[in-house]
């Protein structure tokens, strides 16, 4: 099974690991795994889109080039579903309207990105199981929504922008 599916399954497991009194470590790791499941889902599809099958190491190398914060910036543009919110370099490639499924996946990425950061580093927070379960459910929905839109032309722009938008902007400066 692909890494992103395994991570989602792990997130689900950790969010329900202790039936009565969940450990904070389990809930935090569930949230973190939920984020990484959607991160690797998008990175996997993007690498498949932009890199050929051979040599096999090339796709793996491409996957390492994605930056979390750059991806969040791109998602910010797509999440509202409004073409006007996209950076110019990306906007000129997108055909309006942005599919609601793409906007929703982008919004889920942003929510999980921040949740992962807090779960890993903010020790002042105390999590309920509902916190973790909602984040896992959000990732599950993002997987379903992505499945429905991943072959759309705008999805190809979205995936490519996740990797290259920052460079496109440099080029147009």
């Amino acid at each position: 099974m692909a890494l992103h599916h395994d991570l989602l399954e792990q997130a689900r497991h950790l969010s329900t690991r202790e039936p009565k009194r969940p450990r904070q470590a389990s809930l935090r790791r569930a949230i973190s795994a939920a984020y990484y499941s959607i991160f690797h889902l998008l990175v996997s599809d993007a690498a498949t889109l932009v890199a050929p099958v051979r040599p096999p190491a090339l796709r793996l190398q491409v996957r390492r080039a994605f930056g979390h914060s750059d991806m969040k910036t791109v998602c910010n543009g797509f999440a509202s579903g409004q073409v006007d919110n996209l950076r110019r370099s990306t906007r000129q490639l997108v055909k309006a309207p942005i599919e609601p499924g793409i906007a929703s996946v982008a919004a889920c990425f942003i929510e999980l990105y921040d949740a992962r950061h807090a779960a890993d580093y903010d020790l002042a927070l105390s999590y309920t199981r509902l916190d973790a379960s909602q984040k896992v459910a959000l990732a599950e929905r993002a997987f379903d929504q992505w499945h429905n839109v991943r072959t759309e032309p705008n999805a190809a722009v979205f995936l490519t922008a996740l990797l290259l938008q920052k460079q496109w902007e440099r080029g147009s400066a």
Partner: protein
Amino acid sequence: MSEADVGPAPAEEARIRKILDKWRFPRNVRGYELDFDVDSSGDPAVYIVFTVDDAMNPSDQTVRNVTDFSQELRNQLLRAGVRHWPYFRFQAPA
């Protein structure tokens, strides 16, 4: 980013509260608090913290409900032009 950029302009907070106060939440949602801050990237954010009866051991229905309404609420807030990104957290009653 200056503090003025992060804190809620009165109109922004009022717009968020107006949407939240009209929302029909499930019965086990007792209330909410707003925490205006920056997110982990330094962007303006509003953390909407819901108090939910069974937050420590939620039913599958509760998980579905909060996932549904948080997504719908986020979409509505974004459509309304809210510039603080809405994040959601769920706490148990004190």
